[in-house]
């Protein structure tokens, strides 16, 4: 299945990883790929760690991947990158959102947020770090962080030629289309 590509999106409940993977899948389907996307619902709304996997190619069988199999890991939160790094191919790429969301053991002062995560990762793999939070604020809507990261992912995968405009239009509410198109463009140009 060498022609099948695997993308793993990880983050924290409420960060919009699912919308990003929906737009991604929509774009890939309209380009004629077989696509499978897998997410685990359940406790996501309660601030847990969330992941979505998107696989595409000529023909895809399993909807999920195992360790060492992702071509690109897109991480919406710094510490989550480290939690899921094992799933990346040793020659895979990482897109990291430069954003911290401390979990409850950290908030209550019992544990410390790990230091130097980005440095550790950059030493091991090809990593792109993005201040999606800052860019989103500049655009005037902090919620567009997910689509900025999607833009960066599309660039890292070399998929810029696909019909992303149409995919975004299909997946987001009409009044948010413009801002998300801008966010996507911003993500493409980092």
């Amino acid at each position, binding site marked *: 299945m060498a022609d099948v590509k695997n993308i793993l999106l990880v983050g924290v409940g409420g960060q919009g990883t699912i919308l990003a993977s929906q737009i991604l899948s929509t774009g890939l389907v309209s380009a004629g790929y077989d696509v499978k996307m897998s997410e685990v619902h*359940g406790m996501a709304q309660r601030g847990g760690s969330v992941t979505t996997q998107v696989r595409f190619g000529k023909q895809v069988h399993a909807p999920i991947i195992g360790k060492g199999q992702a071509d690109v890991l897109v991480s919406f939160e710094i510490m989550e990158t480290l939690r899921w790094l094992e799933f990346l191919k040793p020659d895979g790429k990482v897109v990291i959102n430069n954003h911290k969301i401390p979990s409850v053991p950290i908030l209550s002062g019992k544990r410390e947020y790990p230091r130097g995560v980005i440095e550790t990762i950059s030493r091991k793999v090809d990593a792109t770090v993005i201040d999606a939070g800052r860019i989103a604020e500049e655009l005037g809507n902090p919620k567009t962080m997910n689509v900025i990261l999607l833009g960066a992912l599309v660039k890292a995968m070399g998929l810029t030629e696909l019909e992303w405009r149409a995919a975004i239009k299909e997946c987001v509410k009409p009044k948010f289309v413009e801002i998300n198109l801008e966010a996507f463009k911003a993500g493409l140009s980092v």
Partner: protein
Amino acid sequence: MKKLMTGDEAAARGAYEAGISYAAAYPGTPSTEILENIALYTEDIIAEWAPNEKVALEAAIGASIAGARALASMKHVGVNVAADPLFTFGYTGVNGGMVLISTDDPGMHSSQNEQDNRYYAKFAKVAMLEPSNSQESKDMVKAAMEISEGFDTMVLMRMTTRVCHSKTLVELGEKSEAVKKPYVKNLQKFDAVPAVCRKLHVALEQKLIDLEKFSNETELNYTEWNSKDIGIVTAGIAYQYAKEVYGEKASYLKLGFTYPLPVDKIRSFASQVKYLYVIEELEPYMEEQIKAAGIPCIGKDVVPRTGELNPDILAKALLGVEREVIRYDDSVVVPRPPVLCAGCPHRGFFYELSKRKDIMITGDIGCYGLGGMDPLYAKDTCICMGASISMGHGAQQVFNRFNEKMRAVAVIGDSTFFHTGMNSLLNTVYNRSNSITCILDNRITGMTGHQENPGTGFTLQGLPAKIVEIEPLVRALGIDLVKTVNPLRLDELKAAFDWAMEQTEPTVIITRWPCVLKKHSEHDMKEFGDYKSLCEVDTDVCIGCRLCTKPGCPALAFDNESKKASIDKIQCIGCQVCAQVCPKKAIRKAGN
């Protein structure tokens, strides 16, 4: 046109295309979205949340006997609740076609066990289908109707989390007209009394022989020939994993119709390959039957029988292949457990309860299960829905008999109370223990994603429904000592616990406040008002005692360097539980 759909969405589409007219369910991951999507076909299908799975299945059975095509869906453990009607309906057979969708959860992504419900088909003697992707999830609901009406049997469609929640491409079909058969009174078929059922059981055994013949012939069970060194018998999602691992290096007998198994087809397939593997998730359901038929095969001696499978586990188990991974030190990664949301009305309740000594807290299933986690730890047990109240009663009876001063405190949610808690409370009343029952009424079914229930005032489609109030209901069950409190007020909670601990009769404490994520109805607006605001810490007053971290709110952080607490403006909704905990009154509503 092909459309990306989850297995759940596709099964709902299948119900529409198959001309199903009645569907009922009780929510439960990963099945919930089946009925939620069926409900979108408002013109075509009557879709209803039932208070529990037994009721859902029985309502669907009624619809089938009345002559309509019917569906019930539930998570795997829900089938335990619905098992009583399931077994006898296996004897009677159907009028309109009937499918029961069971969604199993290998790996326990959001369940209390990982039971393999394929055994239910064999046990209840009903036909079974197992889809391996969304296309099949849709098509098999249609096939289920043909089989159900053709063989006069209910069909169990067994899905699993990965099939339910993965999006894969589906070719949509046309809707066939709703099929309504006439209703004809037939006591010899539908009146399950001993004299009737003795005959029905004999007929059922013949039906199973006919179904096995069908299983050997149907294209739902097909062979893909490649190399004949290895032949793999597989079904459901395991088929996709097997294909991922072996590709064209093996031949496959892919089974979609898995009860009764196509034994002749398997025997013939086995005779043409060198080694026969049986690849299935969880139990050796197929392997046992294949071995019993005298066909040698390799299965659970190498493939794990616990947990969810994936291609890597299979590759390692079967081929000894391990993929190269990046090595790094992950000990610095801090866990990110799910927590009660900021502003969750359950938090104050558990904070107060956690201070009590000499209590056994029998918990139940719902968001309030998180009350058992760090830092609240206010839970002793969890078994299944409704069990909190009955277990609390049993425990209290024993504590009292042996003169122990322990008190049993049962904690249950509103939806769970309607589900099976009501019967349990009746038991407490009838058998007179003084256990304490706390019903956490957050005005919605929270955990599974905000489904309406008999207490919320709305149907599945959002149409107005009668609001069943819990306090009068509890009184009608025979409880005389009831208090309804506001769980955002710690003093009210404390007073209620003090009061309940003193009683020799059973007591009920109802906490009434909406889930923080709930969209407020007009009724909620009137009752609870627009209560959301913001709290802030006055760092000049904060002494760094950390008491405010005890309720475990994710909006509140303690900084070890400055030794001060702070509150996240985005998450805080101003419930003021932390403000009541602070001994220095350093936390206040912003603007005050």
